[in-house]
């Protein structure tokens, strides 16, 4: 036993000395932090963020880096969990990283921002909660995705166009989902002339063994449409449960539902559903080039936020380059809000609150088993 321990520790020692012997890089890299869901049930969103960021970094490094330094990405998982997000943020901040891309989900971003406490520039590409920028608490927070209230007003316009008058608002009890339901309710109440009534507001516990009780309530309320605040997985489960029960109400979701897997998992039950979502820009030349770079390294799909995340990284790199420093946060902020940068999603600039100018939501409908753009 003793000899085994001895030889093991000798082996380990050899490893240590070998790794120390590797040559030091010529110049220090520029460390960028990424916080988001790399594990857990929402990992597909975080990976989509990560893939976009990786392509932006690959492009920047091939062109000589940012400020003449190669960019190095430091990844921390938060699983979209606010508690994990604050420890991920602490890990990143403790390494002295002051440029952060992320986080993936609104709730996690909210808790991470309180850790960064104005000591880092944070650019998210998927946190859509209105509060993050409206509160004014986060002067160094920016996002390339449009906000949730833009989705709600689009949803209400859809209700009016289709003549739906009784609506149920369902959500997954999470930050993102609940806020979507509240925004939809506010948008409906702000327009009393439309004649739309909210018949029911209910939440479902994500991952419960059955949603039957809520489904029974929706059936009892007799609604024409359901506005869903939450992600695609619960929505497709709910849709199947509703159709099994003979409830035909049209399901209207937001960008959390605008995911191909909603259709693959929901099958015929989700046919005719609507979703608001980020516009599809995958056909542009810049987007095609980005996709080609992605496919060289990964076989996985790019996911919903790929281009938004890539644009977030591109905008941040451009602002740092123009500021000539990675440390003066105020100067970087000035460049983010005053200069327009050409990114994969088109020209990008941020307003004083940190919201992106120029990007909007489109409406999609599930037709014959896939999402197609719908017109009002």
């Amino acid at each position: 036993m003793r000899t085994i321990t001895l030889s093991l520790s000798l082996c380990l020692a050899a490893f240590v000395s070998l790794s120390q012997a590797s040559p030091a890089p010529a110049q220090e890299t520029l460390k960028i932090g990424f916080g988001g869901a790399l594990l857990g049930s929402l990992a597909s969103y975080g990976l989509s963020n990560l893939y976009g960021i990786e392509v932006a970094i690959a492009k920047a490094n091939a062109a000589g880096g940012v400020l003449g330094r190669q960019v190095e990405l430091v990844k921390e998982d938060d699983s979209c969990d606010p508690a994990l997000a604050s420890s991920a943020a602490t890990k990143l901040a403790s390494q002295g990283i002051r440029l952060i891309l992320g986080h993936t989900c609104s709730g996690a971003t909210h808790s991470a921002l309180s850790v960064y406490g104005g000591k880092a520039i944070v650019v998210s590409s998927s946190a859509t909660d209105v509060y993050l920028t409206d509160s004014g608490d986060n002067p160094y927070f920016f996002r390339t995705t449009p906000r949730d209230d833009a989705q709600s007003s689009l949803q209400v316009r859809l209700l009016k166009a289709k003549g739906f008058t009784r609506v149920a608002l369902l959500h997954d009890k999470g930050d993102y989902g609940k806020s979507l339901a509240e925004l939809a309710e506010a948008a409906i109440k702000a327009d009393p002339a439309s004649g739309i009534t909210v018949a029911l507001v209910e939440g479902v516990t994500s991952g419960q063994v059955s949603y039957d009780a809520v489904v029974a309530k929706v059936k009892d309320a007799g609604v024409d449409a359901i506005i869903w605040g939450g992600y695609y997985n619960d929505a497709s489960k709910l849709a199947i449960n509703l159709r099994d029960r003979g409830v035909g109400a049209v399901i209207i979701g937001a960008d959390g539902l605008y995911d191909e897997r909603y259709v693959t998992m929901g099958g015929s039950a989700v046919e005719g559903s609507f979703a608001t979502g980020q516009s599809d820009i995958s056909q542009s030349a810049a987007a095609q080039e980005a996709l080609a770079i992605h496919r060289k390294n990964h076989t996985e799909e790019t996911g919903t936020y790929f281009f938004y995340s890539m644009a977030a990284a591109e905008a941040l790199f451009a602002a740092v380059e123009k500021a000539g420093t990675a440390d003066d946060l105020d100067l970087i902020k000035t460049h983010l809000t005053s200069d327009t940068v050409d990114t994969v999603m088109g020209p990008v600039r941020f307003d004083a609150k940190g919201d992106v100018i120029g990007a909007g939501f489109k409406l999609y409908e599930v037709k014959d088993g896939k999402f197609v753009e719908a017109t009002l």
Partner: protein
Amino acid sequence: MELFLNLCVSGLTKGSIYALIALGYTMVYGIIALINFAHGEIYMIGAFTALIFSMALGALGLSGWGLLLACGLLAAVYCAMYGWTLEKIAYKPLRGQSRLAPLISAIGMSIFLQNYVQLVQTPNFLAYPDLIPPLPFAGALSGVATKSQVAIVAATALSMIALTLFIKRTRMGLAMRAVSQDPTMARLSGVNIDRVISSTFVIGSVFAAVGGLLIGCATRQIDSYQGFLAGMKAFTAAVLGGIGSVPGAVIGSLILGFSESFAAGYVSSDYEDVVAFVLLILILTLRPDGIMGSATTQKV
């Protein structure tokens, strides 16, 4: 009235699913006084294996009741092996240690199995096929219960009857009762305790696999995390009914299922867990050993 009926059916279904899982918790606790936290994961693995077998057997041309039964049987056998191995690896070496050691080991196994399935299968959500064929008397029940709800309640009822007969009528059932009452005395009378414990894990896992398959067919979606919440609720149900007692687990599960369903239906879904857990606190305050639990004195 229709809402009331629908909520009753929903509560009964939920309770039945909890019962299938709660049995595993309560039986293991009854025999070796261990809370097997990895049991929820066995339920999740049951759902995954049934899905894999259904694809393989579906490709071979099997369909309808044959496919459902074959998948259920194979998933049950596979999960039984998991349950058996789990006990041998994680709990048997710790037998006779303080009660905390196997508990920690159980939590570790739960995390391990969750991550294992994520690695070898997928971290994503998977669509689940509807393997339950149309029921012959569906017309009479339309609007009241769906076929998956009928199937879940029927399967649970059959499982409970089979388990009760097994415990009351067979030699292994007798041995289980003996070990549960007094392990030392049972051993002295020639009962092979190892075999009894293994069988307990195997039986609990079989029920969990059946639950995994049926709930997969009902919700039409599975993921590697689904065992956690379901396991927690089933564990709560087992405690509510009196952990260690088989009829107690069923009663506890039904109470939990109905209270959640009615709280969500008549108050708000925000209160479904609140009502369920307030009920748990009340019952445990009035009857600390649960509804059917027998008071045990701690022997120091």
